[in-house]
């Protein structure tokens, strides 16, 4: 980093804009989280860390945190598997590739609410398409997809993974295209088979891209809202309630702005900690690749 004297005037607009739309709201939410505030009833008092103390004892918070973690791990894992797998298949293909790619990308173009509504219809317990097909195929009849705690969280994960897999697919496909042919040829000359070539050549060279995909998707999944709000509303029994849904309900359902803000701050902290961890993992992997390319 070399310091240039004239840099500040150029940086200033960005700093001001970021400060106004990022830093200020974040600080305001943090300040709000130190208050007991129900604005419509004109309740506003400074309570220090009381909201955070209640949060630590609040079983609903811990349940939401656990649900968020489970949702994030499983849905991001699925997306990486599916997105990566489809990318590998498409990468080898030349014919009809554009068409296939467009088809695979379509779910990503849908707004989350629309795709969630679609899944709601597909998963209707009585007369929904999925249950009808399962029934016709002699499978288990009448699965209660959205009303059974064991199924509901997975139905939600499925709906989310379906919509966001294309994003991972796109990133991984781009990563694959960037790996030079010569590397694969050299590996083949050295006698590496398909599997060894994949494990020792493709995967390491893909690692930075996978890392970035993982980072973006994880942070996105931590903040998941639309799919859950539409499909289950957090039910049954709060088993699909994530931190953002809980924060939303606290804000707009119960009007407790102070405690809602504390929940939002907790979500932010979780995302920051995870992002920090990832960056430590991903950053070393990125540098050699960037220099090599």
């Amino acid at each position: 980093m070399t310091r240039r004297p004239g840099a500040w005037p150029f940086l200033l607009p960005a700093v001001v804009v970021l400060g106004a739309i990022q830093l200020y709201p974040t600080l305001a939410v943090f300040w709000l989280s130190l208050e007991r505030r129900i604005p419509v009833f004109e309740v506003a008092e400074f309570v220090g860390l009381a909201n955070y103390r209640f949060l630590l004892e609040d079983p609903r918070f811990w349940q939401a945190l656990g649900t968020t973690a489970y949702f994030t791990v499983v849905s991001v894992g699925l997306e990486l598997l599916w997105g990566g797998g489809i990318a590998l298949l498409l990468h080898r293909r030349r014919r009809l590739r554009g068409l296939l790619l467009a088809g695979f990308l379509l779910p990503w173009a849908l707004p989350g609410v629309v795709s969630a509504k679609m899944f709601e219809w597909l998963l209707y317990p009585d007369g929904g398409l999925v249950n009808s097909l399962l029934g016709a195929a002699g499978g288990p009849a009448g699965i209660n997809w959205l009303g059974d705690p064991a199924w509901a969280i997975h139905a939600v994960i499925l709906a989310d993974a379906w919509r966001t897999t294309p994003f991972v697919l796109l990133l991984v496909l781009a990563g694959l295209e960037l790996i030079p042919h010569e590397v694969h040829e050299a590996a083949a000359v050295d006698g590496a088979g398909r599997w060894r070539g994949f494990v020792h050549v493709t995967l390491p060279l893909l690692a930075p891209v996978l890392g970035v995909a993982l980072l973006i998707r994880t942070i996105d999944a931590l903040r998941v809202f639309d799919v859950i709000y539409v499909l289950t509303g957090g039910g049954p029994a709060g088993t699909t309630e994530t931190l953002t849904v809980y924060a939303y309900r606290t804000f707009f359902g119960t009007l407790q702005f102070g405690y809602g803000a504390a929940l939002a701050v907790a979500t932010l902290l979780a995302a920051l900690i995870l992002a920090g961890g990832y960056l430590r993992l991903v950053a070393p992997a990125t540098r050699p690749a960037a220099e090599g390319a």
Partner: protein
Amino acid sequence: MEEAPNKAELFRARPARLGAWGLLLAGLLALLLGCRGPGAPATEGTTLTFVHGKVLGPSDPLPGLLQEFEARHPGVRVRQETLPSSTDEQHQFYLINLEARTPFDVIAVDVIWVPEFVRAGWLRDLSEVFPPGERPAFLETPREAASVDGRPYGVPWLMDAGVLFYRVDLLARYGFEPPETYAELARQARAIMEGEQDPRLAGFLWQGKQYEGMVVNAFEQIWANGGRVLAPDGRVTVERPEVVEALGFMRRLITSGVSPGWVTAADEELSRRSFNAGRAVFHRNWPYAIDLFEARDSPIRGKVGMTRLPRHPGGERVSALGGWSLTIPRGSRHPEAAWELISFLTGEHAQKAMALGAGFKPTRHALYQDPELTRYQPYLPSLYPLMQAARPRPVTPYYLMISQILQPEWSAVLVGIKSPEAAVASAKVRLLHLLGQSR
């Protein structure tokens, strides 16, 4: 020497150009303001903003009615603003806009919001404009639900009460009378399911998804067993055995097979469609469903009976009150004209049109006997006592917060991951925390 005048010109040009921009801006602003009717001086008369949820019935008579209103009140125009039909989303919309004093003139509010909105100071007291002599023409429960401390803040526009639908043909085949108790209902449902040997036929469908509608179902069961979540004096009585028993009964409906497991994911429409397709014996819903059951292409047309919800031993046959009232927000700039609109829309003529077109259930006593209306909706007289028996959910500014506490707890009982005792215990702790009562 040549440069000097040029420079001067340049410097002079700037303010001139600024002035031009300023003029342009001012012009644009004036244009914008000119377009905004309400802000302009009242030479053109007044424009009322009327905000309400989407009208879902078979047709929407509202635009026609509003035109009629405009024709009767020269100089007054009504601008409709339609919100999504979900009550939660509408509540959020009002929360933001009423707190910001957006100048709406008439808004339709859900019965459960009135105490909250009044406490927040968002609604106008209508005591002065709503003539006391006219008030008794409206049914008492919805009228009281739109009042706080005896002062009216809204006029009931349409109302709802939970009712029990049953299959007349199936009950007759087995020689059953419509059930008066829930135990009877369960017994009849089981007998009919056994007799019909149809694996797709369910016994009793209701709403058990984690949302406000499920809380309504639970209130009805709790009241039918003589219990209450909050006592009339505001004390938390959620841990009482009547409440625990009622919740246990709802869970047993599912475990015993009288209700299918998927009622834990069912809202009004999901359960209504299944009953409408002929796949259930009993069904709890709002009266709107009858118009769909009796529609021309309905497979169960002419086979549906409607009666009061049953009771448990020691309780009474009550149902929950639903519905919407028309109110005037504090921010309204034309309260007099707004009142004219309310009194027109809640009048007999407009309510009749809404009942015929959109299936709204009237809030005026007289309309339940109206000859023209009952010709098209012959069930109206039998609906009348059901509507009168409706009971409001706990009337408190904190109702929505209370419901948010009850939803996950009751849902946990219905899906069987919490016992009713554990659920009421944890609901009690949270209710006390919310209401600031000591344990």
